[in-house]
């Protein structure tokens, strides 16, 4: 029992790559072709095994750090005229300065006694990276805010606001506890397409603030304070989408 369509069109159908007319043709063909029905089922099973087996391997932290170091300094310093330093170097200096000022100003309560200015942004990006390792993302895995919210009860000395934004394209995936600079924080996990977003939440006594954002190691973060809570969202998602989530969280 064989059918030549198992070699071609069936895969376009499986991958959602056929136009509507060809997909309809193939569906009509499926009614009378047992070979294609069997092949389609086998390939669908294979696909879900591949996708569920956790085969995707994310870049190790060491690679990100090497890239940061190499791209942070000119990649081809030897051929650069010394008398003409690249303007972005000054930008980098300025950016570092701004980040230091920002962190000094915004996060001093958290960092009091800590020596590293960029420590918090690094700590949060590191925590984000850690969470992407298999099995580390969620302690409570649920898309239901009424499951996630009570899960935090008794585990924290504050109640993080938990909302599902599935209708806005940011379905809630779950939550977990994390430790950032010795403080236990709540983390809410949202998804956007294939991207994951970690939202770190902890209480603050500082007044409300406008969002501030930045990026590190290829990850973007956006941080704000609202009603006694500070939230920092981190993701490899593009900054515009991340800002959209921040608006939702701030409401």
């Amino acid at each position: 029992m064989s059918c030549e369509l198992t070699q071609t069109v069936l895969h376009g159908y499986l991958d959602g790559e056929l136009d509507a007319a060809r997909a309809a043709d193939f569906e009509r063909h499926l009614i009378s072709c047992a070979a294609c029905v069997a092949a389609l089922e086998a390939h669908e099973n294979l696909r879900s095994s591949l996708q569920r087996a956790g085969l995707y391997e994310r870049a190790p932290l060491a690679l990100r750090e090497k890239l940061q170091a190499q791209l942070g300094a000119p990649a081809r310093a030897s051929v650069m005229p010394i008398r003409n330093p690249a303007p972005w170097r000054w930008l980098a200096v300025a950016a570092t300065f701004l980040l230091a000022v920002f962190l000094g100003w915004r996060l001093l309560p958290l960092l009091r006694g800590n020596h590293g200015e960029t420590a918090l942004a690094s700590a949060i990006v590191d925590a984000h990276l850690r969470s992407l390792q298999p099995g580390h993302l969620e302690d409570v895995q649920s898309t239901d805010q009424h499951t996630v919210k009570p899960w935090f009860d008794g585990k924290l000395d504050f109640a993080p606001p938990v909302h599902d934004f599935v209708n806005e394209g940011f379905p809630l995936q779950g939550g977990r506890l994390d430790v950032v600079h010795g403080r236990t924080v709540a983390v809410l996990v949202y998804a956007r397409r294939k991207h994951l977003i970690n939202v770190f939440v902890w209480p603050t006594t500082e007044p409300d603030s406008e969002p501030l954002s930045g990026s590190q190691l290829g990850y973007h973060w956006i941080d704000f304070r609202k009603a006694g809570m500070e939230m920092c969202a981190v993701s490899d998602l593009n900054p515009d989408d991340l800002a959209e989530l921040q608006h939702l969280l701030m409401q």
Partner: protein
Amino acid sequence: MSAGVEGESLDVLDSQDRARFEQLVLPHVDAAFNLSRWLMRGRADAEDVAQEAMLRAFRFFRGFHGGDARAWLLQIVRNTCYTWLEKNRSVDLTTEFDEELHPQPSVTPETLAIAGDNRERLTRALEELPPRFREVLVLRELEGCSYKEIAAITSAPIGTVMSALARARQRLQRVLTQPAAQRKQEAGREL
């Protein structure tokens, strides 16, 4: 999309381009690593090659004129992998995974448990496929690329992508369901 990355300006990017690179390309470092890990069949060399590819992308970023940054980067990653394999492990490109060089560990209750592990089994099966089949499966099933993106990354027509995926999936099914000895016998008969 620009096809080649060779022969473009080696000038260091100005601040604006640099910011664009950080925003458009750097977030795809996971995709770069994942593709190179599967083409290199291991993490150790994959890290070096992904790093080299990212640096090449950085140097050739002026040749990127908008569009799909991930596909653009993955094209460079793929080229970098194949260049590396040709130079250092050309046997990978011409022959299939040789199970005599990578023998199955002897069977104990522990290894049986590992063999039952889906991840282990699928990893071995994927690594056994020739690279041209492996890459389309990785791009499609793990990276979620469209045919159009895979066509751009592999410099192949879309029809070729579809038939490569068809053959890759059939091969993978066969690797997963038949013991190696039987496949070898069949391969011998086909010759």
